[in-house]
């Protein structure tokens, strides 16, 4: 590798190529093909120069260079420096392998990525073909194609839809959203505790979604309660069940998960450690 570190000037790069890359690997593959390079024997010095030239060009155009591109630049530079170092006679103690090629891992990643990238073309073809046929009821589904919700399986989309519904409900009520001046502020923790108690009290039957929300509906409280609901779901304290597509969403204490869990049985949601309290404050601020 007799190339000087300050290699021959790189040909001007057509600016149109800059935005087209999915990531650093995509850019590298492009450079490799463009310069008809053997992927198994990459001239790292040359490729690194080309790669850095691209990044510089991006910066020159005031495009933000994503962190991933910089990480790859660092990787390339590291490989380059390892290649320039005189090879130790034998790697000592390391899996008994002979001094491995520093490029090996990168080559493997490029080959892997190339395979998936190639498959994308196939997927896109299939996508196009499949869109040439129509199924019954498809018009009603619209573009967001969705197979019917299996019996009893809960769909998070329906939960969100339910929230939108409630917010709309408030919108149609003239007092909504403006009447909370001077009201005690609901914190997420308080909302979680209230909701948790309400659901616990309801026993195995649980409560229906609409019952989570205190009337009259106030936008802030609804959002807080909904966040509390999501948090309780996320913590698997409760589960959401929708038995029929048009049925109500029921929320009940998750018996199975509750049994799995060790410790913290009662009044959970009112305690909670400092860390989660902090993130709750953050969550709260977002909605102020």
């Amino acid at each position, binding site marked *: 590798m007799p190339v000087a570190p300050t290699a021959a000037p790189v040909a001007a790069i057509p600016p149109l190529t800059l935005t087209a890359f999915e990531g650093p690997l995509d850019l590298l593959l492009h450079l490799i093909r463009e310069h008809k390079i053997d992927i198994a024997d990459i001239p790292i010095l040359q490729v690194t120069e080309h790669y850095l030239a691209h990044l510089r060009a991006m910066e020159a155009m005031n495009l933000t260079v994503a962190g991933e591109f910089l990480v790859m630049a660092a990787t390339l530079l590291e490989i380059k420096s390892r290649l320039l170092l005189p090879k130790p006679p034998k790697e000592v103690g390391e899996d008994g392998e002979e001094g491995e090629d520093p490029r090996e891992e990168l080559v493997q990643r490029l080959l892997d990525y*190339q395979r998936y990238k190639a*498959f994308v073309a196939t997927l896109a073809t299939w996508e196009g073909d499949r869109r040439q*046929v129509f199924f019954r009821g498809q018009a009603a589904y619209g573009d967001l194609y969705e197979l019917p919700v299996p019996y009893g399986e809960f769909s998070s989309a329906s939960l969100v839809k339910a929230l939108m519904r409630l917010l709309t409900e408030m919108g149609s009520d003239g007092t909504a959203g403006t009447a909370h001046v001077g009201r005690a502020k609901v914190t997420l923790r308080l909302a979680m505790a209230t909701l948790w108690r309400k659901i616990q009290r309801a026993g195995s039957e649980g409560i229906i979604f609409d019952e989570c929300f205190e009337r009259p509906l106030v936008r802030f409280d609804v959002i807080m309660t909904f966040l509390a609901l999501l948090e309780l779901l996320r913590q698997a304290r409760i589960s959401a069940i929708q038995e029929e597509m048009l049925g109500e969403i029921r929320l009940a204490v998750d018996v199975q998960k509750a049994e799995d869990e060790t410790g913290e049985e009662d009044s959970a949601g009112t305690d909670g450690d400092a860390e989660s309290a902090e993130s709750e404050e953050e969550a709260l601020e977002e909605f102020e």
Partner: protein
Amino acid sequence: MAATEARQEEPRVYTLEALIALLEGYLFVAIEPVTPADVAKVLGLAAVEVEEALEDLVNLYARRSKSGLQIMRIAGGYQIATKPELAQDIGKLLAAPAGKARLSKPALETLAIVAYQQPVTVAEMEAVRGVSVDGVVKTLLDRRLIREDGRKAVPGRPILYATTPEFLHYFGLSSLEDLPPLEDIAVAEAEKAQEHDALQAVGLEE
């Protein structure tokens, strides 16, 4: 009460002809792929019997060259669909142009990785793509093309992701076995990709 009585009645005997007619009717009303196993269970028949009848129906439709309908083997079942050559006109009639809102390239790349490596974690997807996949994973989850599939038994217990029946349906596949071996594609598409790259360089293709 009448409903439970109905379930206890003797399984009826269907002639092949009657079974095919029934399946045709059911394929029509069911707005999702129909699996032989489900039908067999309800009717008290053997799954092979139902499958054979469904295959007969597929062939029957295939022979009607002038018909606007076909029966597809898709997402593990059978489903009636319109023929591809009608796409443009039907799109016009439905006021829903075919081929809009397709998946983005990052989404397709990520989906390709999930399809072949499932179950797979976000970190593993990112290792292959070399970029963050958080946003893309969320989109794919929202569109139900992937789903959570347990957690990996490594520190941090990261969530594993797998493809869904909707994934098969979206790409018109019958099962995951329809996916070609990854190596074959790489070879076959290598030249195409080079072409595409050339176009990309000149900015003719996005």
